[in-house]
């Protein structure tokens, strides 16, 4: 299955892109996505436990993903 990964702000700078499409086998979790992203060039600058949202909702590491899910890796927020 394919999962869409969104990157923002400093994380997008770090990875040089704001969007990835990654393939996983069924049953993959948020943690699996993070592991894959962290193996990419430059990604060692990401914090060990970044915030993640799945389909626009904050999600835990163990959340199981479905094909087409949108996984966003979210830098510390700074609105206001």
């Amino acid at each position, binding site marked *: 299955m394919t999962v869409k990964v969104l990157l923002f*702000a400093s994380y997008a700078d770090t990875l040089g892109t704001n969007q990835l499409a990654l393939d996983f086998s069924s049953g993959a979790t948020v943690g699996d996505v993070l592991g894959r992203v962290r193996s990419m060039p430059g990604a060692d600058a990401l914090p060990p436990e970044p915030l993640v949202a799945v389909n626009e909702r904050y999600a835990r590491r163990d959340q199981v993903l479905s094909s087409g899910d949108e996984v*966003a890796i979210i830098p510390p927020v*700074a*609105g206001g």
Partner: protein
Amino acid sequence: MRSAIVDLPIDTAALAAEVSRATNGATLLFIGTVRDVNDGRSVTGIEYSAYRSMAEREMADIVREAREKFATTDIVVEHRLGELAIGDASVAIAVAHPRRGAAYDASRYVIEQLKKRVPIWKLEHYVDGTREWVNANGQHVAEPAR
């Protein structure tokens, strides 16, 4: 009750008018503005960006929560994105309520939750031409050279 991410200047007086109602005795308007100094560095402007669809969703959730907790539907929030200059309003929250205590509490709830949960980021521009991502805890991450 309304929340929005906007790209144009926020009309703060219009927000206050939007929540006014004959049953309310207190209106509270919070305006967050771009400061000229942050963490000791001279700022010339800030570029706000967001995970826009999620930011809209979180803001709507926060407003709904405030409605439940403080028993008023008279809550309007706008957050602006894009290039803002010193003094520009980045966020405005208007709350009206029959009682002032609840108006203060609801307004405070909305801004504190917004700062914790709504995926918006700011890239500060400094007098020396550098730019850095700033997070709510005051940590800075230098933007890579472009």
